């Protein structure tokens, strides 16, 4: 392996931020490795606490340095794409929760959006604001988990507990919306499962205020910690060109300087009506991926406040009758309602012939649903473009030439979620 990236004349901080940071960080590679020529195979996973799910990494080590590795996965494969072809569009909503289970609501929202788009359904304004808040709360949860677990893997446990508390409170907010904490299934095609309860906006705003304070504390606790910087800076670098080649999206790509955020560049819902910034770093190492996520949480909190301010009471269901689930009092008290209910849940609704690829900036990157419809209540092809699949592919080249201890840091920083990876 070459040490060229550590012998750069420009100090790392200046290369990254354009200015010197408050700490002088120099990284030295250990040149007196006693086990230089001893080759060794190390198997991590499929069930290993540092692997964040069931996947496996075999590494061939030279001393402590990874010479070659390959990744195996598929242990949580649940045939979602096959199920998408054999379930009605309404029935598929529950399967989307189990994609990225750290941010189930984003998957729900994206799926609902992609089917509505194929049917040409317009959802009311209130629904869109609620969906945006849901997506951003999920993003905050996902990023808190990612940076928290990444820190736990590298030994900073208390940092994780700060984030975890806010995550629990966020789940309580979600619970008030739909009764579930993790597998939400909150959206419906053309609407939502239920309206937000009264005073929910205010609770969200309180939570945002708390989270901002906690985030400042977290930032102080870890970001300039010397051990943390030594473990993360210039570790597992994945540069811009590699990111483009490997199909990296989301925070992982933005950490390497790819300035793309689908919320800004291809605004769906009302993202063009809210103000937010897209944090972009330059180097693409573990620290950048961590810091981009931390900054993104702040931007998400800004978006949540703006959405909560603009939310007004109103209907949550689209006026389109095709996808409207009949109200329960109609179902229980009238025969027509009961028939309608039965037909809706047994036969589903028809989506016109066509095909569409709908992408949304999920917490990990671009989550896309490519739906091919040939008419009828079930899709002809339900392709899920999950960001983790493309990110996990980049792990092998990313950890090549790094220490075995940094594998855990690299894996935690790209935030691969097994549910989304295997589908």
């Amino acid at each position, binding site marked *: 392996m070459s040490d060229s990236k550590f012998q750069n004349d420009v100090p790392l901080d200046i290369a990254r931020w354009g200015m010197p940071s408050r700490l002088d960080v120099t990284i030295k590679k250990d040149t007196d490795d006693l086990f230089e020529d001893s080759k060794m*195979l190390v198997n991590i996973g499929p069930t290993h606490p540092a692997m964040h799910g069931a996947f496996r990494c*075999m590494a*061939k080590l030279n001393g402590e340095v990874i010479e*070659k*590795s*390959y990744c*195996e*996965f*598929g242990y949580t*494969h649940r*045939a979602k*794409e*096959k*199920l998408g072809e*054999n379930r009605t569009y309404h029935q598929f909503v529950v399967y989307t929760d189990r994609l990225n289970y750290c941010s189930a609501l984003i998957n729900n929202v994206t799926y609902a*959006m*992609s089917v*509505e*788009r194929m*049917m*040409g*359904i*317009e*959802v009311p304004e209130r629904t*869109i604001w609620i969906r945006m808040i849901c997506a951003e709360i999920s993003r905050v949860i996902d990023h808190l988990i990612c940076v928290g677990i990444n820190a736990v893997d590298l030994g900073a446990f208390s940092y994780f507990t700060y984030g975890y508390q806010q995550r629990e409170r966020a789940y309580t907010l979600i619970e008030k919306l739909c009764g579930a904490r993790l597998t939400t299934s909150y959206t419906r095609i053309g609407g939502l499962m239920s309206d937000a309860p009264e005073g929910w906006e205010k609770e969200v705003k309180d939570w945002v205020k708390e989270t901002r304070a906690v985030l400042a504390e977290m930032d102080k606790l870890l970001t300039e910690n010397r051990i943390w910087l030594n473990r993360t800076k210039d570790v597992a670098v994945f540069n811009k060109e590699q990111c*483009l*080649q*490997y*199909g990296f999206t989301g925070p992982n790509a933005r950490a390497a300087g*790819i300035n*793309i955020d*689908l919320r800004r*560049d*291809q*605004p*769906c*819902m009302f993202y063009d009506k809210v103000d937010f910034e897209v944090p972009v770093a330059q180097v693409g190492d573990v620290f950048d991926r961590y810091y981009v996520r931390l900054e993104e949480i702040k931007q998400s909190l800004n978006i949540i406040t703006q959405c909560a301010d603009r939310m007004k009471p109103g209907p949550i269901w689209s006026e389109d009758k095709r996808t409207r689930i009949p109200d329960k009092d109609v179902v229980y008290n009238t025969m027509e309602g009961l028939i309608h209910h039965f037909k809706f849940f047994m036969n589903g609704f028809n989506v*016109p*012939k*066509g*095909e*569409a*690829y*709908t*992408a*949304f900036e999920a917490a990990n990157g*671009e989550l*896309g649903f*490519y739906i*091919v419809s*040939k008419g009828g209540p079930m899709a*002809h*092809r339900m*392709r899920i*473009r999950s960001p983790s*699949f*493309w990110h996990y*592919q*980049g792990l092998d080249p990313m950890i090549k030439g790094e220490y075995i201890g940094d594998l855990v840091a690299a894996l935690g920083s790209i935030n691969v979620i097994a549910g989304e990876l*295997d589908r």
Partner: protein
Amino acid sequence: MDIRKPVATIYGYFQDKFSPTWNEQILKLRESYGEAIELVVMPMESNIDMPTLTVKKEKIHEFLSDLKNNYQYSFLTDFTATDEKDDEEFEKTNHRFQLVFHLFNTETKARIRVKVKLSENESIATFIDLWIGANWAEREIFDMFGIQFEGHPDLRRILMDMRWEGHPLRKDYPLRGYQIFLTPEPLDPELLK
């Protein structure tokens, strides 16, 4: 009802913004490729979201590298396949599978879809020379549909067990086609050489 309505902007869809460039690019592509482009479906004509070009198999590599290098569609968003076994055209043309590329222009943020038709036992040269990231996507397509990619360095199953028989996303594979293995998947030591 179709997706051309202005409501589509809620779903991040900017057909009006991109259609002049799309028209221009497709005109240019048609000039240089002529017959090799079998079919062009524009979003204005049909219920789809972006221009879909079906290209002949012989020209597809050249076509995609042209799109990548000269038209800035440099980002491979998604690479997948569909099984058209139940389609009416299948009986006429015997083209069972379609490979579907979703390309993304990182400068203008436009998207384009490219398709190649393949018959059942036909193989196609790998696309790794264009995008390294196509590696696993091709493995997944091989796993799910059984399409062979020539020149792929490591064409193994990716999601299913190595000992699995059949290709699950084919339309003739049953939904509950369980196969149960009592021992864990064997590991190939050759992979680390």
